């Protein structure tokens, strides 16, 4: 680079161009991936415009799926950057949905109170998850695997007892039909060309925006990176490690509750088995978004592109002639592997081959 002059030790940090900065951003892979997957499915559906994949209806459909998984992915990314997993997200969706539905239709509580109770429950379980992880020092993988099964099991058993043998709570639709508050979770934002864009799009933008802002522009965000990078180094620098982790477990549980409210109020019923596999989809969203499984590095914005990849894939397969949604899981697994490899490569570039 510098010819003639002897570069001092200090000058060995190279000047970094805008392009290189972009290349080393954690979300770089997910942006390229999202673009690639979108073009791929458009090509596979024969570059048709106006119907199927490339239509406003199609677009609205995969944005809806994207938004729902994206709401989970943003906070799961933050938690993973802090070095922890939350596998209980999926069964929290089922449990929170049941609580909301039972409050509204079985006990006839007003919707606003039912929503408060649902979120209070989710936050309490999130706190408990975090507290157990922090206090016992057990891997969060194990602790939240425990709560995954406990929430699912208790949800099933208690719902049967309280509703005389049923595992589905219905009647939410009629009970909330005239409540303007329900619009917050099942409303339609706008319609273009026959495609209805639902309110979860707004929730998704809000959650991703807030998560990104917290991660990149607050003290708490700096602590999230640090806690995931090294717990001991963070503690020695005076970072409140336990508080950071517990708050993030509460955030993932709260996002599961948002997801549950959207589903229950849109469909009108709650089912114990709702939200199955969502914990893994959220993790895949985060990984495609450039977040390291081992913590300390990642992006909340990237998870939005990760969610888009998921949404487009899930619906895109449906539009491709000769394919059906049976292939979804296979493609998802493949994408996860490719993303993980790509992230590894980006990370090696970003950290200059040393680690």
């Amino acid at each position, binding site marked *: 680079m510098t010819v003639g002059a002897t570069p001092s*030790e200090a000058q060995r*940090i190279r000047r970094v161009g805008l392009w290189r*900065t972009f290349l080393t951003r954690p979300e770089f892979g997910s942006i390229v991936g999202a673009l690639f997957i979108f073009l791929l499915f458009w090509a596979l559906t024969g570059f048709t415009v106006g119907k199927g994949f490339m239509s406003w209806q199609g677009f609205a459909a995969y944005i809806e799926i994207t938004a729902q998984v994206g709401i989970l992915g943003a906070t799961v990314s933050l938690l993973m950057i802090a070095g922890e997993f939350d596998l209980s997200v999926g069964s929290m969706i089922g449990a929170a949905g049941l609580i909301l539905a039972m409050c509204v239709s079985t006990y006839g509580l007003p919707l606003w109170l039912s929503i408060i109770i649902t979120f209070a429950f989710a936050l309490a379980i999130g706190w408990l998850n975090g507290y157990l992880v922090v206090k016992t020092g057990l891997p969060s993988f194990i602790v939240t695997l425990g709560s995954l099964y406990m929430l699912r099991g208790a949800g099933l058993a208690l719902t049967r007892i309280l509703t005389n043998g049923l595992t589905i709570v219905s009647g939410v639709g009629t009970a909330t039909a005239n409540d303007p508050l329900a619009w917050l979770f099942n409303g339609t934002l706008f319609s273009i060309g026959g495609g209805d864009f639902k309110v979860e799009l707004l929730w998704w933008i809000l959650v991703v925006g807030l998560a990104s*802002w917290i991660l990149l522009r607050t003290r708490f965000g700096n602590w999230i*990176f640090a806690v995931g990078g*090294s717990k001991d180094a963070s*503690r020695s620098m005076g970072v409140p490690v336990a508080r950071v982790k517990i708050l993030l477990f509460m955030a993932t549980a709260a996002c599961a509750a948002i997801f549950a409210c959207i589903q229950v109020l849109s469909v009108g019923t709650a089912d114990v088995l709702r939200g199955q596999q969502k914990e893994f989809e959220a993790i895949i969203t985060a990984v495609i978004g450039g977040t390291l499984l081992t913590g300390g590095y990642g992006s909340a914005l990237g998870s939005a592109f990760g969610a888009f990849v998921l949404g487009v894939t899930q619906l895109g397969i449906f539009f491709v002639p000769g394919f059906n949604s049976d292939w979804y899981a296979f493609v998802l697994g493949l994408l996860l592997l490719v993303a993980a490899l790509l992230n590894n490569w980006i990370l090696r570039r970003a950290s200059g081959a040393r680690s």
Partner: protein
Amino acid sequence: MTAHSANAPVLEARNVSKGFGRVLALKDVSLSVKAGEVNCLLGDNGAGKSTLIKMLSGVHRPDSGSLAMDGEPVTLSSPHDAQARGIATVFQDLAVLPLMSVSRNFFLGNEPTKGFGPFRHFDVATADRVARQRMKEIGIEVRETSQLVGTMSGGERQTLAIARAEYFGARVLILDEPTSALGVKQSAIVLRHILRARANGLAVIFITHNVQHALPVGDKFTILSHGRSAGEFRRGEVGLDQLLALMGGGAELTELATELEQLRAAGVAHEADAS
């Protein structure tokens, strides 16, 4: 700051002991450092140096004995508490986070903020500016503050940690083996910074097992051996050999020297036989 602090040590450990399970890591150890003074804490691996400084920086609490600042007894309830009282520590293995940027590392735990209430946020511009300027002062030109610390050399990482501690450590600077992983040139930079900190009126505790690094900068030498104090000396009172002997490594080194001498003698004899 206060009148009584003129002569009293800024930071002091009085007969502290600490055990972990059945292992007694420290027994009845005392250490003190005044403003504008460098106290070198010397000892072999496992002598209890790390336990002692973790105590002085609020990570561990003594089982018995006490800590004092400016002659007044204090309890350091957490690393944050110690920092708030002006004790800045650079830990050997915990200096920086490689996957975070220079400025994020620099301000970790002390992030500058802007705005009020829910809009209070991390002032990234100030963090970048100060980190860049401070790193420049210490001899490292950082052009891109978003560069991950993992791209820096071991010496540069240690220097970043020291620059950070100097920036925030108003009164006491504790350096845990800052030169142990460094080359000769990088070590010299670190030693120069220790002297600069002393000239600025900081109290410095410099932990090392390298006597050659300790001798040129130390005003005082506290020696630990097997968790006990093996003596405290002022500059000029002791030489290299004595310090080595007190650290518990002297006997081994003398033995090694004798062995080498014998080997050489044998080698000479062997050569004589061959010719």
